[in-house]
């Protein structure tokens, strides 16, 4: 992903060459859809959110100040949209206490299959309170870069670190709880 390619495409779009926007879409559609997917865990909705984010990006392109990287600006715009939209229509979630334990809890003890473990973690993540969930999603999406997550969320780095710590604590305690009290859902 090249910042110079982004800059060049943005300038072409602003000069009236709409087709140049396709370059931006092709470079950033994967990250934006994946970011949306982490927020809602729904592929179709993630694509809808990404499409809306690109449309807003197109409308606001002239307002991008070159002092920040295009990607930073785009992620901040998309994150803002995703948060707003998901607060308006929340994704289907279960509360942390309602998350089903696996049918056979011995699987945890013997090491969960990666797929099952990922599913449990993802469900627990989606069920976190929004302010912790958003920070965790952005932190891991940005390869554990606090500064990048702070820019995307428009929050100070200190706040990100505090929410990150608390969010991980909640997540860890829930996962530990699930393991400490194994029970069988079905015989």
């Amino acid at each position, binding site marked *: 992903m090249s910042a110079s390619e982004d800059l060049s495409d943005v300038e072409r779009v602003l000069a009236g060459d709409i087709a140049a926007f396709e370059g931006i879409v092709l470079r950033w559609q994967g990250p934006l859809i994946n970011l949306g997917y982490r927020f809602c865990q729904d592929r179709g909705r993630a694509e809808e959110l990404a499409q809306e984010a690109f449309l807003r990006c197109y409308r606001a392109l002239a307002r991008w100040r070159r002092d920040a990287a295009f990607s930073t600006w785009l992620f901040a715009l998309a994150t803002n949209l995703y948060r707003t939209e998901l607060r308006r229509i929340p994704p289907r979630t279960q509360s942390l206490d309602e998350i089903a334990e696996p049918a056979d809890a011995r699987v945890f003890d013997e090491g969960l299959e990666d797929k099952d*473990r990922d599913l449990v973690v993802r469900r627990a993540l989606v069920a976190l309170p929004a302010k912790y969930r958003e920070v965790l999603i952005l932190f891991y999406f940005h390869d554990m870069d606090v500064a990048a997550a702070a820019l995307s969320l428009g929050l100070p780095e200190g706040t990100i670190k505090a929410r990150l710590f608390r969010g991980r604590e909640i997540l860890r305690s829930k996962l530990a709880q699930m*393991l400490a009290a194994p029970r069988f859902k079905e015989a």
Partner: protein
Amino acid sequence: MKRRIGQDEDEIDRMLELQPRILPSAGFTSSLMKAIRLEAAAPPPILFPWKRALPGLAAGAFALALVVVVTVVAVRSSQPISAGSLSFSSFLSTVRIEERLQGAVSWTFLALVVTFLSVKLSMRLAASQA
């Protein structure tokens, strides 16, 4: 020893980092570019006619200021007059002023309501045409 996911910080990091990645569906780019072209071809939205609305807004602001002034004057004039300063002529003039002020307040309030309704109606009409 049993394996405990929750006790291992690195394990949580690893699991959260390794969230599955999805690929855009086949028609995503084309449908998005279609939407972008439609957006580019669409006429610009009708802007709120500030120039035309300005006199009305100024009149509204003036009326609002007038209401505040009139209310303050009315409150002051309705304060009890001491027995020593009471005279028949001053009593009459106070009553007349109060009557006029009450009339002015009602008319001003009515004008404000009409202004507000007409602004809302024109905005709604403009929005429906956009």
